[in-house]
């Protein structure tokens, strides 16, 4: 019991540090591509410290107060239901508590709580942003769901651990190679999930200042930023497990998640922004068809 608790602490610490560092690295890389020097890699940590070091704060009420708590609980929970390293007891987390559907639905836990919290803030921009975010979410969920169903058909299981186990062996037993269509559909869905450009109308900073967290500051914001690291890490690890053969060691995990993240960064810096209705139509178009094809391919 205590050992497990220690493992969990270790695991969460690992994903927090790596998730935030990854954000820092990516910022640095993007800056270099722009020809800038860019912020230091540890900048996300400084930001979090700074935010928590705010001496005052405001709260609009209990739900507002709990919003970031929900958010970070959602992030940590999502992470804790995913096995991080294949075959490692230390980093298996609570993956015995549920399968891939649990993870898919737990993702919503934090988003829902955050949406509620920002809703109590009473700011119209928060509500607008949540409306956009939910609309977009419902759309990218379709290719992702199809992709996961295709995996379930392919591997005959919902269990993330089993899916990872089935991909062991050579690099060519990764889902990426055995089921490329599902992988493509999921990667496109991931672009929406990560809310990078072209799907960042949710937080459109110039138009609806930063979206849902418009009213959040100080410790709340620090918590949201921490969650960004955890949640990003969790999502990347999930994708790594489902499509890229999982990882057996921490360095492998780091390399793989980095590469997966770079996909959405690459797309993000290359494309302008979609309007909400455009992104809904986009996700329900080609990506969905790819997902359908992936399912049908394994159905037959």
């Amino acid at each position: 019991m205590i050992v497990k608790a220690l493992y969990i602490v270790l695991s969460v610490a690992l994903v927090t540090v790596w998730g935030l560092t990854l954000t820092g690295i990516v910022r640095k890389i993007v800056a270099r591509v722009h020809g800038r020097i860019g912020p230091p890699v540890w900048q996300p940590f400084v930001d979090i410290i700074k935010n928590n070091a705010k001496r005052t704060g405001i709260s609009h009420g209990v739900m507002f107060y709990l919003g970031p708590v929900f958010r970070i609980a959602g992030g940590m929970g999502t992470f804790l239901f995913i096995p991080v390293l294949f075959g490692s007891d230390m980093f298996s987390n609570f993956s015995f508590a549920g399968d891939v559907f649990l993870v898919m639905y737990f993702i919503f836990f934090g988003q829902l709580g955050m949406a509620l919290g920002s809703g109590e803030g009473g700011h119209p921009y928060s509500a607008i942003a949540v409306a956009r975010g939910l609309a977009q979410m419902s759309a990218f969920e379709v290719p992702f769901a199809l992709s996961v169903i295709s995996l379930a058909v392919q591997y005959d299981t919902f269990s993330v651990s089993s899916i990872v186990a089935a991909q062991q062996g050579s690099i060519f037993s990764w889902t990426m190679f055995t089921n490329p269509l599902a992988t493509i559909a999921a990667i496109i869905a991931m672009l929406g999930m990560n809310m990078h450009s072209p799907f960042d109308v949710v937080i459109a900073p110039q138009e609806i200042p930063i979206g849902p967290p418009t009213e959040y500051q100080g410790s709340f914001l620090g918590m949201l930023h921490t969650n960004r690291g955890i949640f990003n890490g969790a999502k990347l690890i999930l994708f790594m497990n489902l499509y890229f053969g999982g990882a057996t060691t921490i360095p492998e995990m780091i390399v793989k998640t980095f590469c997966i993240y770079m996909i959405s960064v690459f797309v993000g810096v290359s494309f302008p922004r979609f309007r909400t209705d455009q992104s809904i139509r986009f996700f329900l178009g080609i990506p969905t068809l790819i997902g359908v094809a992936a399912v049908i391919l394994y159905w037959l």
Partner: protein
Amino acid sequence: MVSPVYLLVVTIAAVFLVPLADRIGRSYGMSVFYAAIAAAAGLGLFWFLSLRGGAPAQNVFIAGFTGPYAIQLQLGIAESFVIVLVNTVFLLASIVLGGALIKEKAYALTLMLLMLTGINGLVLSRDLFNMFVFMELLSISTYALVAMPRNGQAFSAGFKYMIAGGLASTFFLIGTAFVYRTAGTLHLDYLLRSPELLHGGVGFAALFLVIAALLIELKPFPANGWALDVYQAGHPGVVSIITTAGTGAVLFVLYKLLPLMSVRMLQVLGGAGIVTFVFSNLVAIKQENPGRLLGYSSISQTGLVIAGMVFLRLFGIREIAVYAAVAGGLFLNHLFVKGLMFWLSERVGPRPIREWGVLAGKPLLLFLFGLAVVALSGLPPFPGFWAKWEFLKLLAANGYYPVLGFILAGSLIEVFYLFRWLGYAAVKEDHDTISPAPAVTLPMVAAAILLLAASVFFSGSLSVREPLLRLIPAAGILFYLLEPLPGRVKTVLALAASGSAAVIVLPGLSGLHLVFGIMLLGGSLVQMIAGLGSGGRRRGIYPGMVMMVYSFAGLLVTETALGFFFAWEMMTLASYLLILRGSRSARTPLLYMIFSTGGAFLILAGLITALPAGSLSSAGLGDLVFSGGTAFYLIIAGFLVKAGVVGVHLWLPGFYSEADHDVSPILSSALSKAAVAGLFIFMSLANGTVPGSDMFSVILGWIGGLTAFFGTLMAIYQEDAKRLLAFSSMGQMGYIILAASLMSTIGWTAAIYIAVTHLLFKGIMFLSVGGVVSRLNTTNMYEMGGMIKRMPLSFMTFLIGLIALSGVPPLTGFGGKWLLYSALVGKGWYMLTALALFSSAVAFLYCYRIIHSVFLGQLKTGFRAVKEASVWYLIPQFIFVMLIMIFSMVPRLLIEPISAAVGKLAGPDLLWQGNTVSHALGYWNGTTVMMVTMGVFMVPLVWLLSRVRSIQKVKQFNIVYAAERPDRPETTHYAHNFFAHYTKALGFLSLPLVRRFWEGAGEWISSIAAALRHLYSGNGQTYALQVMLYITVLYLFMR
């Protein structure tokens, strides 16, 4: 035994006595008049009772001859039955007419008495010529009485009536002559003894003319234009006699002639009856005048009675009890109801049906009217219901499915216009009032009581043995009588009544029945507590509510098909009453009634088709035979209509949302489960015996999936909080149907699991919103906002409900989703899995929309002082919240009993290991998930709490507003047209195509009705021509 002659003697003697007594004084004349009629009715009753007691039938020969030349009167059980009915109604109608008669001279009284003599004579006499004489007596007195109002319209109507009546008499007389010429006798008994006498061309022609004449007297469609003006122009009292007693006598003559007819004749005659039934109902749709509408309705009922007895004869049935059950039941129903309705129209006065809102302020009259409408529509517990059931059962047993279909279609049309009318009456629009008139009200009450007594009689003689079923209407009436009590007292009484039903019923149930019993009864009971939160008298809620709960119990307890259908129809009726009271428009209850009745008719058709061969008495549910498939599919289709699947969901949003705030939760959370219960009861009955069930489950699955999707999609566009929740219920029903269609252990477990959790969270959400709405007096979400500040408890429960609804772990909703997807993927329905996943993602949209628009965002200026919802609204919510939390902590508590109740079906079972549930593909440990969630929730919370000292609590306008300050809360709250971009992207999916389709269908039917109306030109000559043509066509068919 008193000789039947005295029946005629009494009235004829009175014909002479009345003028004499009238000389002495008006009141003496009237007294003699009423005494004579009362005596006649009393004689009828006496005979009926003694004949039932076993006394032999009497044959009396008068006029000094013995048969075949004598005047023969026969008094058997059938005759006495008709005599007692027609005389009673005649008596009641005369009381209604009292006011009009007293202004006339004595001859009006004598005419009335002559009319009664004619009627009684027709019933009693056994030879054709006497029948002719009595018919003439009836006709002539009718012409005169019709013209009694002495205006142009009445004269013209009477004249048209006379032309056609004259034609009919002529044909009858010619036919009688031919019969005499061919057979040498006019005595029915002789003719029956040697039917060969009427064989051959002349014999046929003779019989044809007689039958055609009788048919014309019964005003068959379309040769009935001549009669219809009478309904509009005549005094309602007189008209009620014509259409009940007069028609009854002629119908009885037809009944007496039935054994003479050939199969061909019977078929054509039955067809004529059905055509009359269907098309008269169709034309009635377009009627605005109550008299005329009732006229069409009477004619259609007459058609149905004709069809009833003719088909029975055609099926070779000789037992008089069956005729009594079918034709007698239909006739009795028609008799009292039409009497009641015509008298009511006298009471309301010359108003088109749209203005019958004057009844809304008169509980007794409205009750009587509602009773009449319900009875006439063939709903239980009235005789029409039992009679129709028997009739349709016989039709199905003999393979007359098209006829069955026509009757159901006609009945549906009938339900439409009758309930539309009831809707007009129930919605108070003008403040006109009608003066009291006990002389009219008393007969109506009497008729209603007689009708109810007859209902008891019929239900007793026919097969509904479970006492609980009889309690359903009894409870309704009891609570109607308790109406004057204060609302809270009635709530407590209703709780007690429903609670005792639950206590009595539940221990006797097992398996799925028990699960649904707990859901339906327990769910309703808990939510009924909310009723204590509303003050006032709350008229009209509890009769429906208690009836509904008892119907739930009945549905689960009953073991017979008839019992099931009875309970089902009672439930429909009860819920109709509930929505009628709460609804703002007449449209919603009407739509509900149409679709519910349509669904019920599908179930009815399926049930009687599935009845095992040769079961005249009622068959058990277990005996139903589904091997043909059709019956099963019809039943399932019926339940799907009731569940409101996409395509037939038109009634759903209004129905779930427009009732009172404490009633809507029950309708949406519990009543919706009745359809599910029915679905499961019949699917488990039929499991494995239905051919082609693979295809069936695929189709059912897609219906469920599309319902889930479209229900959800439409929910996100609603501006009305309750409508949003209603569409959400539609979506959840879709999941349930989808899961049920899988026909696997996990699938059914999922379906029932979702049903249970839906009951819980939808109950919470509706009650919470109901509590809010009852404080704010608006259901528009954009007018609300910020209620978390004023109603934190309601918010809390709503939030729990919402998390459960959305399927986010750790609450119960996730279990349903997990089971559903597991079962779907296990079955290999991948596209449906994706559709379900998409729907559940879209569900987040409306979830957020409602909680944000109502509880979060900006508190509006006008609502700054509202209080937390009533504690009575909160108690049921907290009970449900407790249940949700328990089931979330230990899902095993819920899933295991359900899967035990489901039993073993196709597909893998669920395996348990501690709190982990697993199947071949996946696994889930709800308890661990809950623990982990609480753990990860606590850590950041503790950190934030350590910082709480530095946090300033601010108010709603302390927001960053682009360096401005918000102007008003109303303009700062983002709530209207919340998902505009969704409309832009996927709006084409939510176009009201279904509504347009049904409106188109309605339009189409209505234009047919309008076209048919052109038959009625108002010209006497045309009508005469129509009669001639009708007879010609009839001849061509019968030949």
